[in-house]
């Protein structure tokens, strides 16, 4: 049996963005809108316990939150003209206060999209974009976000407050980007979700390899964007990439939290349904013109996920995809991952030359995976002493305990004590 508290928690997770976005329309002020929505959720627990759970919890919450907002505005006696902190599109109708908010079903008109584009506005720093997205779109509390990023709560609270002030001061609009700006703005939003997933998939620091909650939130966001913008190929690509990675989550560590590399993971325990969905999305995302960086990354992840065994991985095809990825997204991180594919197709020596070039370039200084990949390639070319030194460099650079123990294990195999 599900308790009312569970229903409220579920509605929090699924409906927060929709309720908040609809309330921002009334308040035109993020802070006030958040308060009104929080109050609506608090009231829901009580009202639903007494009167039963409504048929459409989201509509109930939206009505309650917007009602709270109107009350607050009336009490404050504030003229709406003084509250133009967020600008409405010129063509949009005024705030609709006639009960449940069901208008604007069309993809481009969904308020949740406006909220995503607001949080991921390029005028905000990347860390502020991430924090705001979790706070406003996912409804996570500031302490939860602070814990996820291992920063003190006060630091995260200040970051969120600064970002909100900036939105108001610079008048970052609550609006869909103009069609000409959409590709760039969409890329910024996808980057935020990708970064969130990356942080959840392999935590940069902390005792565990993953932070499943963050990865799960990122997946939900990607799914929401896909539902709202089904025609965008890069949105499909991102969702596919996340699904293919998430499908392997149960097998990436042992029961006691030890990291397992791809070749040791139990492929029979991978989430087949998620992989099949990723595969279908990739097929769609690759079709119709030159694929973008998310579609290409997804194609690579899907090839790994559908390979029957590590030895059966289609490395040649993966290398082709990396070549194309490096063209559309010239990043040293892409080049490093491409080098791993090179090692599998033409041997570790060729890959090593590429990694050493990247190392000299210096743009990946302090990136633990550069040292880890180099160590692995040196080990495989039989240069044990040099490999040991690189493992030590990687160990010093990583903040993730599971990765650290894995690397310590490899170091011990490479340079047995004595």
């Amino acid at each position, binding site marked *: 049996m599900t308790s009312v508290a569970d229903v409220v928690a579920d509605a929090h997770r699924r409906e927060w963005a929709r309720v908040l976005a609809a309330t921002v329309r009334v308040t035109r002020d993020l802070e006030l809108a958040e308060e009104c929505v929080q109050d609506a959720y608090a009231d829901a627990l009580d009202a639903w316990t007494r009167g039963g759970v409504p048929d459409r919890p989201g509509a109930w919450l939206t009505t309650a939150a917007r009602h709270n907002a109107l009350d607050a505005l009336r009490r404050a006696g504030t003229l709406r003209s003084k509250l133009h902190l967020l*600008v409405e599109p010129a063509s949009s109708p005024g705030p609709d206060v006639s009960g449940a908010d069901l208008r604007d079903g069309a993809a481009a008109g969904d308020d949740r999209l406006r909220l995503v584009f607001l949080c991921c506005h390029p*005028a905000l720093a990347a860390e502020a974009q991430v924090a705001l997205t979790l706070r406003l779109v996912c409804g996570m509390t500031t302490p939860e976000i602070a814990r996820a990023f291992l920063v003190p709560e006060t630091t995260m609270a200040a970051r969120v407050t600064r970002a909100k002030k900036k939105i108001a*001061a*610079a*008048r*970052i609009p609550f609006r869909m980007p103009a069609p000409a700006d959409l590709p760039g703005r969409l890329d910024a939003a996808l980057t935020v979700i990708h970064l969130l997933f990356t942080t959840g998939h392999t935590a940069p620091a902390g005792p565990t390899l993953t932070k499943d909650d963050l990865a799960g939130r990122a997946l939900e966001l990607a799914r929401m964007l896909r539902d709202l913008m089904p025609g965008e190929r890069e949105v499909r690509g991102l969702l596919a990439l996340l699904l293919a990675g998430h499908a392997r989550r149960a097998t990436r560590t042992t029961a006691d939290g030890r990291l397992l590399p791809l070749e040791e993971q139990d492929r029979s325990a991978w989430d087949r349904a998620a992989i099949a969905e990723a595969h279908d999305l990739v097929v769609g995302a690759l079709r119709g013109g030159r694929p973008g960086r998310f579609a290409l990354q997804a194609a690579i992840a899907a090839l790994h996920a559908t390979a029957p065994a590590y030895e059966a991985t289609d490395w040649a095809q993966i290398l082709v995809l990396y070549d194309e990825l490096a063209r559309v997204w010239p990043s040293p991180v892409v080049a490093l991952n491409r080098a791993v594919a090179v090692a599998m197709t033409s041997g570790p020596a060729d890959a090593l030359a590429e990694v050493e070039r990247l190392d000299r370039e210096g743009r990946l200084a302090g990136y633990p995976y550069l040292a880890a990949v180099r160590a692995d390639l040196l080990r495989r070319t039989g240069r044990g002493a040099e490999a040991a030194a690189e493992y030590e460099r990687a160990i010093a650079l990583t903040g993730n305990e599971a990765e650290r123990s894995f690397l310590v294990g490899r170091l011990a195999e490479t340079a047995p004590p004595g």
Partner: protein
Amino acid sequence: MPQYAILIYEKETPGGVADIPPEVMEANLRAGEHIAAMGAKVVTEHALQPSATTRTIHKGGMVTDGPFIESKEVIAGFFVVEAADLDQAIAIGRLLPIMDGAVEVRPLLAP
């Protein structure tokens, strides 16, 4: 409507205005019409003399020759616009051709 400063940074050319390519000049001159067509308004605009004419006053009152910091790009000019929101101000900033530098869009404190 809120106001934004649009600051234009460029590398200085030895011959000053004479060195600016005609298509860049043309785009700068036409920006005004585009801004009006967008429903925004130019409040003030200024082009600056070469940075060598700068005198910088430091905290202690010392006056030095030249700009405060050595930089590859210096402010070539600035103007203030009234725009609906940041996105429109950025769209106005994009109207200006960038040769070597950058255009900065900065909201002004409400008067």
